[in-house]
């Protein structure tokens, strides 16, 4: 296994997180370089994810690297029955770094054990999506000036929302207080409660989405995804419960910023966009800088 891989956000220590965030700030000042000159990066998207892929490919291009790969599994040999093991073994011979998105959970860890070159996980099913977490952390640090001692409110699908899980793990280094706002069906999974209890991290669970957000420094909204529900009735019941509207923000803190991993459907009303506390579009741009920093670290540049 190559320990330069980034599979899960807890592969990074607190120091490494801070180091990568500092690097991301440098990339924001000077995004264009030739750090990746002569390097080939494999971009393996076994399921389509336009946003993440374009962000990675922009990051690689701005660093002067070349990209090979595919954008969904139908154009790879997976359709011929090739195992992930074989695909990764082959690709790791061709390239200096692998960026992989795969629908199966744990596929990224497995790929990192099979590969001779570092693997960056660009999402493995409902499991981890650490580069999203790094851009979330970068956005939080940039808007709050710190990552320490913040009141973090997470809203929506906390059961299946992997961005929520990874962000929770990462912020646990920085003495946060979490508030989880979700319907019972979508509450934060047990594994994470065990983790927070073990690490003495303060958290509260709520089912009401109301003025409790007045204490928030960060409001992290997520989409309730139809495809996560086996029973369509269950989805209909919860899909419109947690919608953020502009008038809910009038008594919130000045430093509050609203984050969302995007794409949004209806969970943030459009009238919020004009509020200076809305940060989700800037947040997406931060993704390029965060990914440049992650790539640089993976390749020891």
């Amino acid at each position, binding site marked *: 296994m190559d320990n330069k891989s980034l599979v899960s956000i807890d592969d990074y220590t607190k120091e490494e997180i801070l180091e990568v965030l500092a690097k991301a700030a440098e990339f924001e000042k000077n995004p264009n370089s030739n750090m990746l000159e002569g390097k080939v990066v494999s971009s393996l998207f076994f399921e389509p994810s336009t946003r993440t892929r374009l962000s990675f490919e922009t990051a690689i291009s701005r660093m002067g690297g070349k990209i090979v790969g595919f954008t969904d599994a139908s154009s790879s040999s997976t359709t011929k029955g090739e195992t992930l093991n074989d695909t990764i073994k082959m690709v790791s011979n061709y390239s200096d770094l692998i960026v992989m998105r795969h629908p*199966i*959970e744990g596929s990224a860890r497995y790929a990192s054990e099979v590969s001779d070159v570092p693997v960056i996980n660009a999402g*493995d*099913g409902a499991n981890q999506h650490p580069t999203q977490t790094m851009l979330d952390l970068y956005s939080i640090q940039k808007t709050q000036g710190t990552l320490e001692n913040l009141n973090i409110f997470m809203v929506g699908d906390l059961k299946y929302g992997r961005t929520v899980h990874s962000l929770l793990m990462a912020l646990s280094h920085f003495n946060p207080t979490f508030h989880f706002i979700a319907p019972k069906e979508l509450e934060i999974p047990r*594994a994470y409660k065990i983790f927070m209890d073990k690490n003495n991290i303060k958290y509260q669970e709520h089912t009401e989405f109301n003025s409790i957000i007045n204490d928030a420094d960060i409001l992290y909204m997520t989409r309730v995804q139809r495809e996560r529900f086996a029973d369509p009735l269950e989805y209909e019941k919860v899909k419109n419960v947690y919608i953020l509207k502009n008038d809910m923000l009038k008594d919130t803190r000045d430093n509050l910023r609203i984050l969302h991993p995007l794409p949004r459907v209806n969970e943030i009303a459009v009238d919020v966009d004009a509020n200076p506390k809305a940060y989700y579009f800037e947040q997406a741009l931060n993704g390029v800088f965060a990914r440049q920093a992650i790539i640089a670290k993976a390749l020891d540049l």
Partner: protein
Amino acid sequence: MTKKKELQVRAIKNGTVIDHIPAELLFKVINILELDKCPTSVTIGNNYKSDMLGKKGIIKISEKFFEDDEINKISLITPNAKLNIIRDYQVVEKRVVEAPNKVEGIVKCMNPKCITNVEEVYTKFKVVNPSPITLKCHYCEKITDEKNIRIK
């Protein structure tokens, strides 16, 4: 009232006796410990009367003394099993099995979307809680709890 202390299975001279195995789990325990590959004599008994379990199984393995991480594998399914270490027909040590720190290759991950259930991948778990035993998959990072432990 005195209990009749008659042995239900013949004694061994040196080795290990695993007692208080729930009868229905006996063969799983044999598999986990890979006793089919054991070169010394193994005595296996099942469906003996037990006050604690109703019916129990017992395994006596001659000339075999288990390492902790070897024997602790069976705690996944039989947390109450007792070990008697025998030397020269005497019980020299009694032990209970303990939850191991990690579990490799024995248990199936309960997450159907886990890579270990899709491709030929050797399973690995961290034991995040010893009792009730709770396992966290090294790959998909999901929890497999006691109720859902399935032996491969």
